[in-house]
């Protein structure tokens, strides 16, 4: 992973700081399995440097960006780079303090404390990824305030107060700007350093495609990246919704093509049909047809 960072051109000083971070903070072997092994790498030097610096300084991060900007990929990559166990906490409308911190439960006829993911993460020096943090009600996440700011404590009523491990960091992700998405309240936002995640650049998108499919022909790397950018631009101009601007779907489609499905069929499953509006689908199809020929066979896309 560190080699990847060097390849991305991240400053050496930051990398050596990461190494000393890893050496300084030890890890319970029982949680080693939680250190992620990323499937995708995040590409983007500036964002990497911003994120690493903030985490080294002990700050928590909030990654804000629209679909397919790699928020979760970056969060996972960061945990991997710093070599810390990762706890994934998905936020939703029913997220409350008990599901985050923990609560009493009954086990073998006894009342015991059932630790919530935030509690565990804080105790064992993990990286907590607070996914879609703006989906939860603001009052529900208010319990995190003391956890996230300088106090670095969790006070569980009727149980105990614990201090958060020095190696613990919290990384929030949120998708902002859709009609009606909740505003994150100021009290919570102020406890994060915020990175506005840029849309993936064409160049990085090509890198990603090649890493994923090393046997992809150069011209089709170009075309798939171009296709994604075309869709993104169309969506930015509100001609289509973001439903079809789906990087996961594109990658999955290329997987299907690798298995032998023709290009148009694979893309219709992975991209076009993500939209449920007939007219929008037509527009998306047009974009695809201006990039990918009909009935494109596997042999034309892949080298082997």
């Amino acid at each position, binding site marked *: 992973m560190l080699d990847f960072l060097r390849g991305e051109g991240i400053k050496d000083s930051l990398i050596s700081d990461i190494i000393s971070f890893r050496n300084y903070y030890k890890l319970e072997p029982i949680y080693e399995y939680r250190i992620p092994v990323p499937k995708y790498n995040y590409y983007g030097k500036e964002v990497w440097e911003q994120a690493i610096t903030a985490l080294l300084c002990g700050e928590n991060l909030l990654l804000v960006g629209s679909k397919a900007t790699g928020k979760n990929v970056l969060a996972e990559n960061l945990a991997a780079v710093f070599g810390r166990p990762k706890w994934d906490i998905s936020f939703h409308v*029913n997220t409350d303090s*008990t599901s985050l911190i923990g609560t009493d*439960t*009954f086990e073998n006829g006894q009342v015991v404390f059932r630790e919530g993911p935030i509690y565990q993460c804080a105790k064992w020096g993990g990286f907590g990824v607070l996914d879609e943090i703006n989906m939860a009600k603001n009052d529900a996440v208010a319990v995190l305030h003391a956890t996230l700011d300088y106090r670095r404590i969790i006070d569980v009523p009727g149980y105990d107060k614990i201090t958060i491990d020095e190696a613990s960091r919290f990384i929030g992700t949120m998708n902002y700007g859709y009609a009606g998405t909740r505003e994150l309240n100021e009290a919570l936002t102020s406890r994060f350093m915020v990175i506005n995640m840029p849309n993936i650049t064409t160049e990085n998108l090509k890198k990603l495609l090649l890493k994923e499919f090393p046997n992809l022909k150069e011209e089709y790397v170009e075309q798939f990246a171009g296709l994604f950018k075309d869709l993104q*631009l169309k969506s930015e101009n509100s001609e289509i919704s973001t439903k079809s601007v789906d990087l996961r779907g594109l990658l999955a489609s290329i997987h299907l093509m690798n298995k032998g499905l023709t290009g148009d069929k694979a893309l219709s499953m992975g991209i076009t049909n993500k939209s449920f509006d007939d007219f929008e689908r037509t527009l998306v199809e047009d*974009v695809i047809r*201006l990039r990918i020929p009909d009935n494109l066979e596997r042999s034309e896309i892949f080298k082997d």
Partner: protein
Amino acid sequence: MNRIREGNKRALNIIWNASNDYSLDPEFKVFDENGEVDLYWNYIIGAAHRFYDYALLEKFFNYLKIDRDHEFYEKLFWLGLENCIFNKGKEERPVLYNLRRNYGEKVLRGEIEAFENSLLEELRKAHFKRALGIDPEVTGNLLNILNDLEFDSSLNTEEIINIMEGILKKYFRFNYGQYERNEVKESKDTSQKHHQKQVEYWEKKLSDDEMTAMKTLYLDSAETARDVYLERENEKIKKPLKKVSLLNKGDSERLYIRKYYGSSIFSRDKTLVLEGILCKDNHKNCYLHFTRGEFDKEFENDVNAVYYNNASLKQRERNLNHFKENYISYQNSILKLTNRIRNTMLAYFEPYWVKSNFGRLNIETVWRNVYINDNEIFNRLFNNDKGNISVDILLDASASQQERQEIIAAQGYIIAESFTRCGIPVRVYSFSSLRNFTVITLYRDYEEVDKNMEIFNYKTTGCNRDGLAIRTSLHLMEDTDYDNKILVILSDCKPNDAQCTPDTGIKQEQTKYAGAIGIIDTAKEVKKGIQKGNSILCVFTGEDEDITTAKKIYGHSFARIHNPDRFAQVVGVLMQNQLKNL
């Protein structure tokens, strides 16, 4: 009609995609004889904007228009452009090879509608034969034209135009008809004549700018409120004669508005207070009038007032008739929309208990833990209660909506009725502006569940000060106790209140509320409303050309109704998203 509109939109999207510029309003779009959008040609048009200096090309196309037969020359020119654009674009999009081959094969098989002009058709066939790697099978001048016409991709815009001019000069009698009148005998290659035309070409360019100016002018006064305009003019003349003081002036105007729009539902003082709060900033010197549209008996003997009242009644009749004529499809829409809203409410709003291993102890089940080791003896409440909801529906009743009054009344009714059936309180009102007054006509209030039919009283008049209307409704909404307030606006997104002339007492100062000023102001009000925690949605009722405006004002939160049959679906999705995200 809708198919055409959708096709148009689709062609535009292809062109935008190819040009990477979503602000274009291209002159050319290509459809086949069935009205289907042609992917390849629209790409070529879009790419022309991208690879070439389109401003120059546009001027040249305008120049071609001086000939009666300009369509012929335009098509000829595009045929040439296709060659160089294809060659420029093929690197970036190898798919163009396929698209071009498919298109060429279609041309040769005769599946593409033939050009009326046989020369053009022959050239097209020859061109695509060559593109497909077949011998073009033409000789003589035709071959020469073809060779000249297939512009090389290394040429720049000026060079291409020069070559095309050369072709016109060499092979055609371009703009011949015009000169025929002056000179009976004219030989094909009098170069002097072309010089003359050149001059004309540049003159044409000048007038082109004039055209733009004209367009802007036209757009600015696009509100079809001419009658209102005239009335105002008359009023202006009358005013000095009356010599009313500033204070009284407001009252006399109020009387005038009351005469035509109906008695006020608020006391004079309350209206004045509201005006004090709302009519400031951009809306300084504006007034408000709140009414239910009930004819004020005071004016029973006033011919004009009675006439206007009768007109309103007639419009109601028309609205109702239109609704009745389309009764089944509208009822269907109501059912669909009702179900969608209800489903969303059920799926997202109902609290429910779940068995869990933590939460509130369920004493009756404690034995399960002791005897069968079941840890799930707690209950957890999943609370989906987002509080109650209210919906305000604001109809744009300006004259620009005149031609679709019946449809808008019906659409307003569908939305109101659907929410009513779901037990959600709805308030419906419309707005329009006359003189300096923005008139808010209330059709039904939250608790008046049986008054939805009143919406058919909807009638368009005057201008619209969207910003003030939205500000007013948001203010009215603020006074209610509902937790989640949704404002639905049915508008064509053409804020225009050009007639508003605040009388300073010293001189008339024309503050125009139209074009960009109106749009920016409206967008600002919408943003303010959203920041205060309201949901604001727009059902766009206008023409395609104003969609960009709608986007500017409402962002993603607007629905465009392409097809009336899909009204419920489109609005449903919009509402659903909004409700989900409360």
